[in-house]
């Protein structure tokens, strides 16, 4: 569904993140000194610039921090789906780490399957992964029960 040009550009810096998505795990950079997580990935570790960031796998659990419903005018591929939802998720491990995504009822469902009106800020979510092509797998999010 996603316009090719809007798919992420994989480079040396972010390759472990996108490989993680292909492998079905959420992998983020981490400062080896302070243990702080880093996102989006970058070449230099801002928390200790002389110490290279390491990659670590996190739970992929979080909660919805914000949600919007973009309406046209948009790029064609997104116009066809509009209005769809886009969410910001804060991670369980560190609520200052936020990821953008879409809430879906199940892996592979379109990003307009759940309407804005049915999405509450604070909803607990779990990452899932949708294969787009050979190179790109995008993270999506599904709601999870409040208490597990």
């Amino acid at each position: 569904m996603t316009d090719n040009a809007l798919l992420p550009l994989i480079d040396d810096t972010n390759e472990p993140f996108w490989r993680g998505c292909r492998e079905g795990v959420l992998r983020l950079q981490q400062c080896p000194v302070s243990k702080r997580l880093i996102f989006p990935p970058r070449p230099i570790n801002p928390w200790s610039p002389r110490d290279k960031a390491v990659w670590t796998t996190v739970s992929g659990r979080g909660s919805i921090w914000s949600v919007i419903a973009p309406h046209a005018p948009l790029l064609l591929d997104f116009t066809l789906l509009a209005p769809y939802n886009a969410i910001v998720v804060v991670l369980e491990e560190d609520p200052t780490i936020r990821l953008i995504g879409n809430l879906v009822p199940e892996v592979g469902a379109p990003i307009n399957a759940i309407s804005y009106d049915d999405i509450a800020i604070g909803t607990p979510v779990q990452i899932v992964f949708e294969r787009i092509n050979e190179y790109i797998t995008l993270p999506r999010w599904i709601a999870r029960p409040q208490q597990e």
Partner: protein
Amino acid sequence: MIKDRTAIAGIGQTAFGKQLPESELELACSAILNALDDAGIDRCEVDGLASYTQESNSEVELARNLGLGDITYFGQVGYGGGAGPGVIGHLAMAVATGQCRVGVAWRSRKRASGAVRRPWSKTSSSLQEELAVNYTRPFGVLRPVDEIALLAHRYMHEFGATRDHFANIALAQRKYANNNPDAQMFDKIMSREDYMTSRWISRPLCLFDNCLETDGALAAVIVSAEHARDCKQPPVFIHAWAQGFHGQHQTMQNFFCDDPLRGPSWATARQLYRQSDIQAPDIDVAQIYDAFTPLVPLSLEGYGFCARGEGAAFTENGNLELGGKLPVNTAGGGLSEAYVHGFNLITEGVRQMRGTARNQVRDATTCLVTAGEGVPTGAMILRR
């Protein structure tokens, strides 16, 4: 310190509209000539030029077309709507330090003619130059309005802001524009119902939460305070100015930081007031960058007019209108006068200080002008 050492001696603009026949270069030249006429300064005296990095006209092109002489200072400020007061401030520093004597700042744009590339409207390799878009665009967060809507909804959730608050801003500014014949929305009355029933752009933001699309140009002439006293217009002093962004700030995608609702305005305000005799309670009128309505309450908080989370409530009771606690965007702003990356906020600030604004705040002697919240930004305090 830069305090009161320089002044804005002239301002100029073109018509604002859609499908203006002139090119961006012609618009820029005409705004600059108008500003020089306003100041009563001959173009051969211009020796400093400052603009936005997104400006399509180079200093060289302008100088060749306007027939300027030797230019001894030129510079640009980045980040689109974050640039305005910084562009003026750079010239103020250059004039105050003797790098130039007569500085001209300008912004020219044909946004409403489709002549300018919108980064989100078509595919482009430059789209990928920014690191963070890799993590937003694939999910359909494509446009500035989508990015601000994410912050706006969180702001509503966290602090109890409502669409009525955003409407307060849009309506106050429309009312100002309805009394400003230069405004694109001069003859378009808007009611609260119009606002509430307008189409969604990126929910929770609707059409009227968004700025206009404008063709037009503006310019300002900056000289030393002494020089300004000899010019045609009463000088409007640049009392203080500042730029700023906070640690881990991410331009437009500012959810990738610790505290997204405490944006670059806060860092800028701290530096601004540190060098200013005029503090927030002393400010009579404000021109606050308004590409989207939610930027106004966020900026009101950042610049200390109210506490964090109280920006929305600040818009109540006509506080932003004439006679209110802090008249804001008195020519109509980006929402209802023209959207030229905030340069029309600068010129309106100057008119308020001269006492010649269409919606003049009575006895106003101090004016805050800000650039965009959510990007590396800037602000300045003008005084009579």
